[in-house]
């Protein structure tokens, strides 16, 4: 393989690595949101201790739904790291 193709492959792979790292910035959102939700849940339990099990299970459901956008970021990062979707645009690569 000539040098131009190697350089192009290296550029594409570097771009994928940088893109995967940038995609994981989406992990900030669920961290802040779910922490806030847990804080509110603990405040409610402190005010009304008999409602603890309902509040806890509702909090878990809400956290699982709020996690979705973080999972979207993880999904994009995993596709970029392991499936190499852009290498097929260079000739002579699998």
């Amino acid at each position, binding site marked *: 393989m000539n040098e131009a193709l190697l350089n192009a492959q290296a550029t594409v792979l570097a771009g994928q690595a940088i893109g995967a790292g940038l995609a994981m910035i989406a992990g900030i959102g669920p961290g802040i949101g779910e922490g806030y939700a847990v804080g509110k849940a603990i405040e409610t339990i402190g005010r009304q201790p008999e409602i603890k099990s309902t509040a806890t299970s509702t909090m878990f*459901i809400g956290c*699982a739904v709020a996690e979705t956008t973080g999972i979207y970021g993880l*999904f994009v990062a*995993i596709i970029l790291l392991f499936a190499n979707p852009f290498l097929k645009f260079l000739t002579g690569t699998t």
Partner: protein
Amino acid sequence: MGFEVNVEGPRRMFCLLNENGDIVFSLSESVVTGWLVILIVLAACLILTKDLKKIPDTKRQCAAEYIVKTVNNMVSVNMDKSSLAYAPYIAAVFSYIIVGTLISMIGFRSITADISVTGALAFMTFVLVTCTKLKHMGVGGYFKQFINPLNIIGEVANPVAMALRLFGNVSGGMIITMILYAGLGAASGALYDLIGISPIENVGYVFNIFQVGIPAVLSVYFDLFSGAIQSYVFIMLTMAYIQMGKE
């Protein structure tokens, strides 16, 4: 031996070729593991419903009645009391998803780590919600809400988000466990090099010491807890969308 992670999708278990060599029909690993899930759920149902008496005196019948009571309670709390006909569907989908996710404990690949399976389940929910809406609003009323084209995106985004949420959680957990295994294998390889044990040619070490107990502890969160919560969220959202479609 180094740190190498090989993440791949579900393998192709069976295919039929026509005379040109093109694939006419193929079965993937998720389908075959899905058959095993069906067999497990069927066996559990048959065992639980054998020899039922009017007044329960075996632990098996008490467990079966507890399961039915829980599902009926969940359906009547989240949807109204006239919707108890949905309870068998909800219980079937819940048991399929949870057994399909927890089957990775036995060694198979989770069926919900395949976007086709979660997409099919979300599509079933989409069809159910659309038919409920068509029945309650009529065909004209259903299409009248699409005058604002943003409603189309909202309509399509719900099942897509459900499919991607379940798929992302389960397959993300699977990939993290694979990376963890590879990392622990490399760490124990380094320890063996320090001590002086050498690997077998082209195969590797016989027994990686760090891979023994640590992945089990983390797999309680990634596989058990995350899989159970995500399947519960899936059916809660199904019930919520059906209930919203009735108004």
